[in-house]
């Protein structure tokens, strides 16, 4: 696998939130039109690694490159402006605002007409169009997750980062959400996602990273990782 092909890559990242290092020489990349999944046991630094790529923690070593350009020194907002978009695990919608306003806020940095993009989001998640005047805080967990992803798509990102998008939603909703994510990737967006439901996530992954204690343990295509007996035993429950 050739790293230079990666649209976005965080290389040899070491750092933490001001205290001890949480990730060590961690390398994670994503390509356009592909889905990258980061899995690993609890506390293995999966989310931290993704947040590091977005510039949300103090990195002592390593670099982040977007489309060949070094963005290590940029603030999160500047990275958002360059086409990176994150859906956090919790608190990922503006609960006191309507669905439509949530999407509008997602497009805050854009100066052009956002009606088209909003239409695309509504096409992707039809239920949101129905409920667009409703407060996001009043929606069900699965619908909220759709608002969250929709909000992140409003900037027309080139990279979409999802932090455990299926945490706390039912299996049916999860399957549906993964379907949508596949569709998003099919549009040429680089999707990077941290997942607790490793088996289902790896099934749709073009590439998977297994992190253990903040370090890369395995890196391969999703199906290949799922075939690996060691991984199956350790992380996928047999």
């Amino acid at each position: 696998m050739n790293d230079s092909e990666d649209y976005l890559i965080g290389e040899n990242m070491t750092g933490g939130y001001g205290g001890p290092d949480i990730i060590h020489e961690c390398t994670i990349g994503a390509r356009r039109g592909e889905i990258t999944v980061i899995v690993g046991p609890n506390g293995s630094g999966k989310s931290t690694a993704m947040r590091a790529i977005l510039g949300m923690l103090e990195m002592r070593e390593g670099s982040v490159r977007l489309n060949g350009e070094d963005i290590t020194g940029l603030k999160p907002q500047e990275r958002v402006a360059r086409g990176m978009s994150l859906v956090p695990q919790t608190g990922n919608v503006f609960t006191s605002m309507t669905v439509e306003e949530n999407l509008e806020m997602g497009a805050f940095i854009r100066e052009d007409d956002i009606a088209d993009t909003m239409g695309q989001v509504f096409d992707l998640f039809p239920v949101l169009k129905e409920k667009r005047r409703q407060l996001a805080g009043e929606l069900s967990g699965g619908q909220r997750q759709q608002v969250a992803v929709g909000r992140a798509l409003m900037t027309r990102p080139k990279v979409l980062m999802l932090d455990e998008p299926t945490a706390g939603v039912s299996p049916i909703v999860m399957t549906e959400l993964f379907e949508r994510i596949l569709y998003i990737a099919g549009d040429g967006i680089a999707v990077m996602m941290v997942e607790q439901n490793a088996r289902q996530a790896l099934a749709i992954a073009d590439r998977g990273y297994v992190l253990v204690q903040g370090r890369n343990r395995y890196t391969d295509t999703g199906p290949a990782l799922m075939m690996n007996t060691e991984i199956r035993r350790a992380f996928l429950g047999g």
Partner: protein
Amino acid sequence: MDGFLSALILLSNFVIVPSMAYGSQLAIGALAVTLIYAILRFSDFAQGDTMAFGAMATILLTWVLQYWDVSISPLPTALLALPFGVLCTIVLCLLIDRWVYRFYRRVKAKPEVLMIVSVGVMFVYNSVVRFIIGPGDRWFVDGERFIITAPAFKRLSGLDEGVAFKTTQGLTILTAVIVVAALFWFLNRSRTGKSMRAYSDNEDLALLSGIDPERVVRTTWMIAATLATIAGVLYGLDKSFKPFTYFNLLLPIFAAAIVGGLGNPLGAIAGGFTIAFSEVALTYAYRKFLAYLTPGEWAPQGLVQLLSTDYKFAVSFVILVLVLLLRPTGIFGRRSP
């Protein structure tokens, strides 16, 4: 029937209209407090003195205008000077934010610390106001005093009681309606207003959406300064301007904001009127009012006053305490304490 109408007029003159005007002043002040709380996440104790500063700046220009014989009679000249006062207060608030508050945002200080910092700012504003204009009472109202006077009304209607409606009262209520409408339009319709709500709702997500927190904060200070100045000037026109009374206004304003649920603009307005009506209604002496309604021999002996006027502002705190006990998030609150 005449007795009933007279009683109603009496109630309107001494309870309804004054508390509408006072409620409007409190509501605008409480809106400023609640906005600062929603965005900057602390209770700003300098609010009363910000109002005093804004009123002072307006008064100074009013005096200059009066000296030059510029007038918009029958309206008070202060209205002409108001934009200048607003501008001065905005500049002051932005400078103080830049020099004082910004640092604490960067270090993510606890709200308690910011609250104590605002006490320091209160001291500074307080002394600046007293230094420039002095601690005494200042009058700056001019123009027509009444929209309708009691004798004129009596002549027209032939009733025993006349409706008296002061210009400043009418002006206060009208201004409050305009200000509140404008603010709600701004918060619910404009992009900047929505970004403020988004920031107040979820700071981290607002950052991820590319909303610039410093811009949100600046906008908040500008709106809060505008509201504070308007509230301060209206109060000064209606009563009189004295720096110390503005410090005392802090208490009912906080009560209004909390009663409505800190951080909730709609609640701030409801809270303002709740506090104002309770203060006025509980301390009004109903003797004359009841005398109009009852046959002569049943007319009450005493003042029929529920609370002595000295406890006027204590009313707001009794309500505050009751709300804290029964519904800590305020009658319109949605945030948990």
